[in-house]
């Protein structure tokens, strides 16, 4: 529906009109920016790995690490256990490196960045060019600020608020920069949570990752603002392989947000990221994702294959990691943000909403591996299937013999909208000591007719009513999101289900 044609009635304020406009178009990030790109040759080989490494001015040890990963990858077999079905990926028919031409010389400041690029992020609603970025200008008192690292295809195009964060001792930069500037930290932690040989896509990522974000919070520091990365796949036939490494040193705290979009294209694109979180004694990391990659059209054409390895290591005692994810995009999702609860009294939490509509397939969940004493974990997963989509929750809760007095609570609920879709639950529960308590419950149901009727009888349209009921179903997870994201996520839930009723 073209919103411009709609007559706005008196008394409706501009904000409402804007909000409704924003909600119309099925996938509002589907446009594509015409930017001159520089590509590495198609295909994957040792030379490509060397090329990526040299483009990033990497030291020798990093190249060796990548090459070892590449050689390992050649010996691995692509996994097929997930309940997803997609044509075989031709790894030689992809670009592994694409960057905007204007980035050949690394820009000194955001002012040197191609205006078209900045325009892209502006369109996405990412305030890359924060006014406070200008030296000395402070943001108004009380306003929440977010530092952003924006990754465009293979490279990071800009990181905001770096100087201000530096004052607090926080390092927030692209990973390529971190490899050059802070090699001691990168060498100490990279690959210690997700080892090089972890799985097929993680190994591939180790070999060809081009950029991503790096965060280090020093001991005792509470990061003064939310950190955020924004990923955009723009170029065609390009895989995005970003790598994120977050280290929260003793008694520190950080909240990190991640958003992703891609243009609407007929050909499926691969996204294989690795995210590693490390929480030392008493540290806390909050990691939130709104994943809204292009999901493909209603016939399943195009879209992103989202094969991501995310894992947190609660290495220190009393450390805490919280994963929150809203998964609405991608044609195929294969993602299990996990926590290794190694430190005594450490905590892991996982809150997830996964919405699959049309021909989308999602196989997602978490692993909570309890190794330390008195560790706690909580899993709340809400899966929603509509159209012809398949949505699977797959998770593991493992209590090792030494994880005495540990506790887990798992709740995974599935909601079905329509009789052509599927909702599946595949939990693994392994309890190897008796002082720990594990509770797991799962339900599957359809949207409650009574609730729908109640909404309809009060004059709501059917789609609005479904969106409202679904938002209620997801409430526990939405509440776990930082405020800015919660609003966006609610709107996303409504958009993702458009056309799924009637």
């Amino acid at each position, binding site marked *: 529906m073209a919103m411009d044609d709609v007559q706005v009635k008196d008394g409706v304020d501009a904000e409402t009109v804007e909000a409704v406009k924003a909600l119309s178009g099925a996938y509002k990030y589907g446009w594509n920016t015409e930017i001159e790109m520089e590509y590495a040759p198609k295909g994957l080989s040792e030379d490509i790995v060397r090329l990526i490494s040299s483009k990033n001015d990497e030291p020798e040890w990093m190249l060796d690490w990548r090459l070892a990963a590449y050689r390992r990858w050649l010996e691995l077999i692509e996994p097929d*256990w997930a309940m997803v079905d997609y044509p075989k990926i031709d790894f030689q028919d992809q670009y592994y490196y694409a960057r905007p031409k204007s980035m050949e010389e690394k820009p000194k400041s955001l002012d040197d960045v191609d205006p078209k690029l900045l325009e892209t992020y502006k369109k996405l609603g990412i305030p890359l060019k924060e006014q406070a970025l200008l030296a000395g200008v402070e943001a108004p008192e009380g306003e929440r600020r977010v530092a952003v690292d924006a990754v465009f295809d293979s490279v990071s195009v800009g990181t905001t608020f770096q100087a201000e964060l530096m004052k607090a001792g926080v390092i927030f930069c692209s990973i390529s920069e971190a490899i050059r500037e802070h090699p001691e930290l990168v060498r100490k932690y990279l690959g210690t949570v997700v080892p090089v040989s972890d799985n097929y896509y993680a190994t591939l990522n180790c070999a060809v990752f081009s950029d991503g974000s790096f965060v280090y919070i020093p001991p005792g520091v509470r990061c003064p603002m939310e950190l955020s990365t924004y990923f955009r796949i723009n170029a065609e036939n390009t895989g995005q392989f970003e790598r994120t490494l977050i280290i929260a040193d003793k008694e520190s705290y950080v909240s990190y947000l991640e958003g992703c979009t891609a243009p609407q294209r007929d050909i499926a694109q691969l996204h294989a990221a690795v995210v590693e979180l490390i929480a030392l004694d008493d540290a806390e990391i909050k990691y939130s994702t709104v994943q809204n990659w292009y999901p493909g059209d209603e016939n399943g054409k195009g879209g992103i294959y989202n094969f991501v390895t995310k894992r947190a290591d609660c290495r220190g005692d009393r450390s805490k990691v919280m994963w929150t994810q809203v998964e609405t995009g991608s044609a195929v999702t294969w993602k299990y943000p996990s926590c290794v609860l190694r430190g005594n009294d450490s905590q892991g939490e996982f809150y997830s909403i996964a919405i699959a509509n049309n021909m989308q397939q999602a196989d997602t969940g978490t692993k909570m591996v309890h190794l330390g004493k008195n560790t706690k974990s909580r899993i709340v997963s809400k899966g929603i299937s509509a159209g012809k989509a398949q949505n699977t929750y797959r998770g593991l809760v493992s*209590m090792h*013999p030494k994880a*005495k007095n540990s506790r887990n609570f798992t709740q995974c609920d*599935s909601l*079905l*909208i*329509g*009789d*052509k*879709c*599927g*909702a*599946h*639950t*595949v*939990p*693994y*529960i*392994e*309890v*190897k*000591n*008796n*002082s*720990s*308590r*594990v*509770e*797991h*419950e*799962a*339900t*599957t*149901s*359809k949207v409650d007719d009574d609730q729908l009727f109640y909404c309809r009888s009060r004059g709501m349209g059917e789609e609005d009513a479904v969106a409202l009921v679904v938002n209620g179903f997801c409430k526990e997870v939405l509440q776990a999101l930082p405020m800015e994201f919660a609003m966006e996520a609610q709107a996303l839930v409504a958009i993702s289900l458009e056309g799924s009723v009637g």
Partner: protein
Amino acid sequence: MVASSPKLISDRALHDAELISNSGAWAKNARQSASARAQEQGLPQRRDEYWKYTRPDLFVQKNVALIPQARPEISIFADQMKTEIEFKNAKLAADDLPEIDNCKIESLSNACALDLHWVQDIYGKLELAGQNPVKRSLAALNTAMATEGLLVHAKGQVSSPIRIHSVSIGSIDAVIHHVVKVEAGASVTLIETGQYGARSNVVIEVEVADTGSFHHIRIQDGQESHMLTHIFASIGADAKFKSFTLTADCKMTRNECILELVGDNSSVTVAGACLGDSNFHHDDTVFITHDAVNCESRQVFKKVLRNGAVGVFQGKILVKAGAQKTDGYQISQSLLLDEDSQFLAKPELEIYADDVACSHGSTSGAIDEEALFYLRSRGVPEPKAVDLLTLSFIAQAIGEIEDPDLAQAILSYLTDILEAR
């Protein structure tokens, strides 16, 4: 997958020419196709997802010396039984089988010699249907090799339960295959007690016609035994299927139950209780397929484990597209009495219909200290209090047994076991 050596389970060769040539036409066909199926599937491997928590090699290794110790004869079900059939060392003890009203009982070996028999429509057929999506090659092997078993054809209400009691001495490998056919409106209860062999591979195929009803109760208590069982059942409309298994102190058991609801408005229950001590590994694997409207399925499993015992539960509810109004329920709980025991569970749902209510729950934990304290403060000695709490924990699974007399018999048998240990 490359098929491994066909020489397994027993020393009898799979392609035993004698076995096939002595069979009647239907049996020859069934055995040959099952044999080909097993060859193609190969043996289960430890890395198979389907065998994630239980070692399949323990069921197929050769020359495992297991000498079962006979349990003192227990009087369980003594009052209820009128029809008893005995198996001795993995063979039917007597040729003449009891004749009862509304039901015909025959031996598999006799039926195999005939060229035509009603069992040809079921034997190996339900097992074949149950090979999807997971390969169960050990069940296919059973179909190919089994010569012993009962064929029970219930044509009306069978008033008293049929009990199969088996006794074995020494390292006996048993391959047993029972077939039960329940006609429309008929109902029958089958009880299995004792142990067929030191190592047993048992398949039961059950066809329940519309409005039929089948009840199954099984006691597994052979101390030094390895037991692998499969139940394959197909359930018609307005019908009922209930199976309960009590497992106490077997060394290694895996009970697979593969049910398919093909008619509307039916209900099935698979329940199990196990008491595991030290060198004990027990695996319940259940796969229930809903392919009809308005059916109910229940899976209720309770495991009490101590001294390093391991309990496994793999349960799945598959609701096919169109199987609306399905009510699926699944609960698996374990009570770990000490630090060394383990509970491993994989409760799955796979759902392709929207108007359904499916749920599963799984819990694991130690005995409730507060409840224990309550009992002790009222003068109950600790071991007795633990037994009481154990019994109350298991009670839900026993509550799934329809016949109150049988449920009571099992409860008192359990009390005896707990007191004895």
